[in-house]
């Protein structure tokens, strides 16, 4: 658990954040200049807070009033920087193994071979850092951070230097590696869809201040938070299991983990690379979800899921509808639809989405038996 109560001033900028982060992953989200990177710098010990405390798992890392400041190299807080920061005088493999000498064998959490496997680094090891693409460099950077055996991993917009397509390819790999490592992560992003793929637990920051904290869907109900999310691509991310494939219809059946039993499986475009029984996550954009008051016959839309409207959030240009369908789904509709259908809390609706709108993000990587080895 990470407890923060920090304040600092830098020119015209003031950071003032009190928060307590628990759980495997927290997405730190906010616009540019919100103080996200500065806050990470404080946790890593690279920036000394003017006042307040940083406490990690009960250990005081900073206490400005009492003059406590544990130096960065003794914090065991790993950082993956936006710009990778691989050492140019070492090869990719040497970068990867750089931190190993600083970690006593008894305290090592991962073996290099494991990390190489999670991040598919094998073909990169002999390469010079300069010859790596942005995505490859970030994979090496994450592997290197893991091999320092940290207690907490901070990721500071690790994919922001990559183009969007590449980001989509690498995110599942990163997510899988993070899952496999079992390390708690604070993931900074100013891209909501990206943040949501790492965690739905969020800490929202704006202008150096905390706007809100908690599960994403809960945050949607905060007016200030909704304001932050404006213009961002929202995303439903659903934990699910592959139920089977129907090759003749070219569909893959997917059962949401929290959907309750007896519910019809979702149909997605045939993806035989994901074996039946595998745990996966699927993404569904709220703008791909249509609402109807009754099931619709004679349509090509393969998924029709009944639910109840829990919240209707009116934005400037769009209306977000939060639907309890066993699992929580977000639908993005126009104000006109809202009025015509009379969408309001408590109303039963059907959520409609095409098989093609469901995107399988990844297979959740299997967790190592204990997350450590000795």
């Amino acid at each position, binding site marked *: 658990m990470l407890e923060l109560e920090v304040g600092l001033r830098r020119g015209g900028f003031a950071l003032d954040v009190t928060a307590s982060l628990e759980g495997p992953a927290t997405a730190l989200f906010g616009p540019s200049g919100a103080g996200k990177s500065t806050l990470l710098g404080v946790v890593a010990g690279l920036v000394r807070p003017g006042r307040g405390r940083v406490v990690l798992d009960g250990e005081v890392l900073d206490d400005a009033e009492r003059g406590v400041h544990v*130096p960065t*190299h003794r914090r065991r807080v790993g950082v993956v920087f936006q710009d990778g920061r691989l050492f140019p*005088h070492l090869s990719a493999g040497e970068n990867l193994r*750089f931190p190993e000498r600083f970690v006593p064998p008894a305290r090592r959490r991962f073996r290099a071979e494991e990390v190489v496997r999670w991040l598919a680094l094998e073909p990169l090891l002999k390469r010079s850092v300069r010859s790596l693409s942005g995505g490859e460099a970030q994979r090496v950077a994450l592997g290197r951070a893991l091999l320092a055996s940290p207690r907490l991993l901070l990721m500071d917009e690790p994919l922001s230097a990559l183009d969007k397509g590449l980001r989509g390819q690498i995110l599942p790999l990163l997510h899988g590696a993070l899952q496999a490592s079992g390390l708690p992560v604070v993931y900074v992003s100013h891209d909501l869809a990206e943040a949501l793929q790492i965690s739905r637990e969020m800490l929202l920051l704006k202008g150096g201040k905390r706007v809100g904290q908690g599960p994403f869907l809960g945050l949607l109900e905060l007016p200030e938070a909704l304001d932050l999310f404006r213009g961002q691509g929202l995303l439903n991310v659903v934990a699910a299991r592959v139920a089977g494939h129907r090759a003749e219809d070219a569909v893959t059946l997917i059962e949401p983990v929290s959907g309750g039993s007896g519910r019809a499986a979702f149909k997605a475009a045939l993806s035989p690379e994901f074996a039946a029984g595998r745990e996966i996550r699927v993404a569904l954009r709220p703008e791909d979800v249509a609402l109807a008051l009754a099931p619709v016959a004679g349509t090509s839309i393969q998924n029709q899921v009944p639910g109840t409207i829990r919240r209707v959030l009116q934005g400037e240009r769009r209306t977000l509808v939060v639907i309890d369908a066993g699992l929580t789904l977000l639908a993005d509709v126009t104000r006109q639809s809202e009025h015509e259908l009379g969408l309001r809390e408590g109303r039963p609706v059907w959520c409609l989405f095409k098989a093609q709108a469901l995107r399988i993000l990844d297979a959740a990587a299997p967790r190592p038996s204990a997350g450590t080895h000795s």
Partner: protein
Amino acid sequence: MLSHAEWTALLLSVRVGLLSVVLEAPFALGVAWLLARRRFLGKTALDAVVHLPLVLPPVVTGYLLLILLGRRGLIGGFLYHHFGLSVAFTWKAAVLASAAMGFPLMVRAIRLAIELIDRRLEEAAQTLGAAPWQVFARVVLPLAAPGVLTGFVLAFARSLGEFGATLTFAGNIEGQSRTLPVAIYTFLQLPSGDTAAERLVILSVVLSLGALAASEMLARAVKRRLGGGGRA
């Protein structure tokens, strides 16, 4: 080809040059790092003291060394009384004089190289568990290697040309402090010394060019290892 005295001067010059570089290198690395990376009280004063031999007449530097390290000097007196150690007017004095004169050049070259290194790489190393001295050894030093090498060569070259401070602090003793420049000067004082002096002059030129060529080759090798191009 060379007379015994000429050989002695040549070998002494090379030996004094190498020893002075070895002697001052650790200090120069430390001071360069302090000046490049740390803020502390008296930093300007340290910077000034380090640069002093560059601006003072070498004879003055030699004289100051004599005051400090001579048999009746502040430090030299202590060394002589307690350990029977005498530095002035020996080859050790020649090494010290060379080291003092080359020090600012070495510090400047290394400091410049360290300042060019992206500090964020050092931060990254810290987050990976490297203590400050490990960051220095594993990141700063390798990345600054071309500059460090330049500093060594500059200091060595300065030592080959050292005259004033050496003569003042170490004297003109064959096999002890009669390095190439001092030997050339000595030969020029003799009625029949012109030919010997000329030979030594040619030798000096060859030696200096050799040092330059060697450093250039080394620097290229290091740059190749760092992956060519700049150090971004």
